[in-house]
């Protein structure tokens, strides 16, 4: 267990700046989840923490020690690679034991560890197979097992569940959560899965193009996104964002008029989440023809055009209408998020 600090870290590959001044403080025992679009530098950041790449500038601290020049094997971390990186010439058992053997762990202890990890990841039957004889999801679990077999200061997970089927993914997620609750090792975890991020994280870091957009608990990120990027990246469906003007406390845009806002006059972006609005007969804030209608089972998702964008709204599961029918939607003032119309930054409310 150890804390981890990333101080003003930049990383460039030749002329390409991949990370542009990352600052993060991760407490000992914290579960930090990194999210961001493909290519924003998540794996690169993990590689820097692991010591597989060197920082262009800035410092990485594990505990209170600057580890910029410390080699990976002396950082005492375990990592699951996005590409699994299983040793092709070794069977699963050897893959799991390689790191332990290298670190001179006694044989009986190695066997016990493999037994335990294999059971947890449901790969006991696969122990004698070579990686080439495994499916994608099985390989991923072996990759996971290789990290879990060790007992490091920090775990780095790069999309460790991305290739599993839905059921197994939920199981593994629970398993990881329990593991963390039991051993309290510091974890940095990259994922594209919103639910994983929300359920696992103590705190979530949202990145975009090598810059941290927001750091906060899952609730903070979800309820008070720092800018339109975070608002549209977190949540499924993404937060609705409409363009319009505020005039005397009333937001106006195409098909939309929401009164009672306390904000200065001028152009803004107004956001709200699909589940916070409702189809209404009276007090319509949005009036527009239905553009699409999707039955989700537990709800019905409508989209309409308003404020120059597509806006989704969750309606009751028995809601029925035809495409093109006019619909009225109420958006309570309390669920509205206001963002600067140019920078996209959240406006204080």
């Amino acid at each position, binding site marked *: 267990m150890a804390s981890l600090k990333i101080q003003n870290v930049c990383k460039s590959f030749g002329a390409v700046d991949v990370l542009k001044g990352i600052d993060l403080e991760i407490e000992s025992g914290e579960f930090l989840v990194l999210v961001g679009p493909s290519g924003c530098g998540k794996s690169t950041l993990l590689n820097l923490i692991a010591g597989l790449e060197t920082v262009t500038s800035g410092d990485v601290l594990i505990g209170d020690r600057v580890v910029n020049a410390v080699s990976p094997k002396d950082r005492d971390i375990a990592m699951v690679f996005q590409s*699994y990186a299983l*040793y092709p010439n070794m069977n699963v058992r050897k893959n799991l034991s390689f*790191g332990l053997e290298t670190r001179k762990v006694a044989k009986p202890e190695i066997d016990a560890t493999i037994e335990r990890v294999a059971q947890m990841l449901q790969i006991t039957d696969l122990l004698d197979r070579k990686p080439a004889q495994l499916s994608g999801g099985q390989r991923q679990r072996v990759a996971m097992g290789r990290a879990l077999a060790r007992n490091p200061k920090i775990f780095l997970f790069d999309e460790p569940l991305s290739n599993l089927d839905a059921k197994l993914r939920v199981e593994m997620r629970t398993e990881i959560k329990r593991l963390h609750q039991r051993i309290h090792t510091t974890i940095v975890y990259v994922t594209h899965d919103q639910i994983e991020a929300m359920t696992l994280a103590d705190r979530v870091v949202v990145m975009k193009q090598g810059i941290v957009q927001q750091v906060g608990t899952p609730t903070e990120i979800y309820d008070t996104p720092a800018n339109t990027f975070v608002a549209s990246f977190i949540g499924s469906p993404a937060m609705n964002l409409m363009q319009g003007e505020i005039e005397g406390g009333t937001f106006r845009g195409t098909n939309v008029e929401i009164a009672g806002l306390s904000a200065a006059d001028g152009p803004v972006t107004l956001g709200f989440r699909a589940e916070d609005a409702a189809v209404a007969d009276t007090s319509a804030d949005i009036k527009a023809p239905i553009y699409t209608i999707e039955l989700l089972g537990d709800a019905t998702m409508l989209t309409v055009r308003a404020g120059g964008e597509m806006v989704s709204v969750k309606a009751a599961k028995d809601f029925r209408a035809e495409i093109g029918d006019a619909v009225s939607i109420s958006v309570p003032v309390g669920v509205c998020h206001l963002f600067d119309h140019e920078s996209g930054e959240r406006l204080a409310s």
Partner: protein
Amino acid sequence: MPEAIHKPPSERAQRVFIYSVLLLFVVYFLAPFFVMFITSIKTMDEIRNGTLIALPRQPTLEPWLKAWGYATIGVTNEGIRGFFWNSIRMVIPAVLISTIIGAVNGYVLSKWRFRGSDTFFAMLLLGCFIPFQVILLPMARTLGLLGLSESVWGLVLVHVVYGLAFTTLFFRNYYVAVPSELVNAARIDGAGFFRIFWRIMLPISTPIFMVTIIWQTTQIWNDFLFGVCFSTGETQPITVALNNLVNTSSAVKEYNVDMAAAIIAALPTLFVYFVAGKYFVRGLTAGAVKG
């Protein structure tokens, strides 16, 4: 495809054409060897009286025995036997050393890059294009200074140095296709430079080892120029001895003995091809389609 499926006539005509051409090439390439072989088991009388491609009427092994054991080469009468072993003693260490160093070089140049490693590799590649003749004099001087002139070990050194450019190239290009994450994972697992090489890289290197060994064996075994320049008398490799055998002035030219000796000189490379040839083809294409 099962034979039962009928092919349209045009396709069959194509087949016939292709196989005829291939057959022609086979004949073309095998004919010299065939002539060599039948000549080597004829008596001198038959050679003088018959034609080149006539089959021997009384096959004899005598020319082979003579070539191997008691033909006159230079000033000795002991056949090419001793020189054959000279070549073996030269080829084995030279191939092994150059292959192993090439493997380590390739590993470093692909997985442990350092500042300037690409330039270094480019310069090393230049070594593949240096003609033998250019390095003869400097090499002779170097061997002299090292006290290795005219010894088998001197030849070994020459071949190792000259072969490194090729072996490094082979291994480097093979290892470049191996994902770097493998090395990274092993580094995180606590393995160092040699442990990663030994446990991760070497076990997946069989095809490229075969390619390199075949290449180096053929090159070094067949070399004549270095052999003739850097060795004398007893220490000469078989290629030089073969030349001397053919050129030794005696009353009659014994074509049958010459041919037998030539075939003996070619046997080891043929042997290597037959044993490891399938790896050669596989190894050369292994990088192209990653599996």
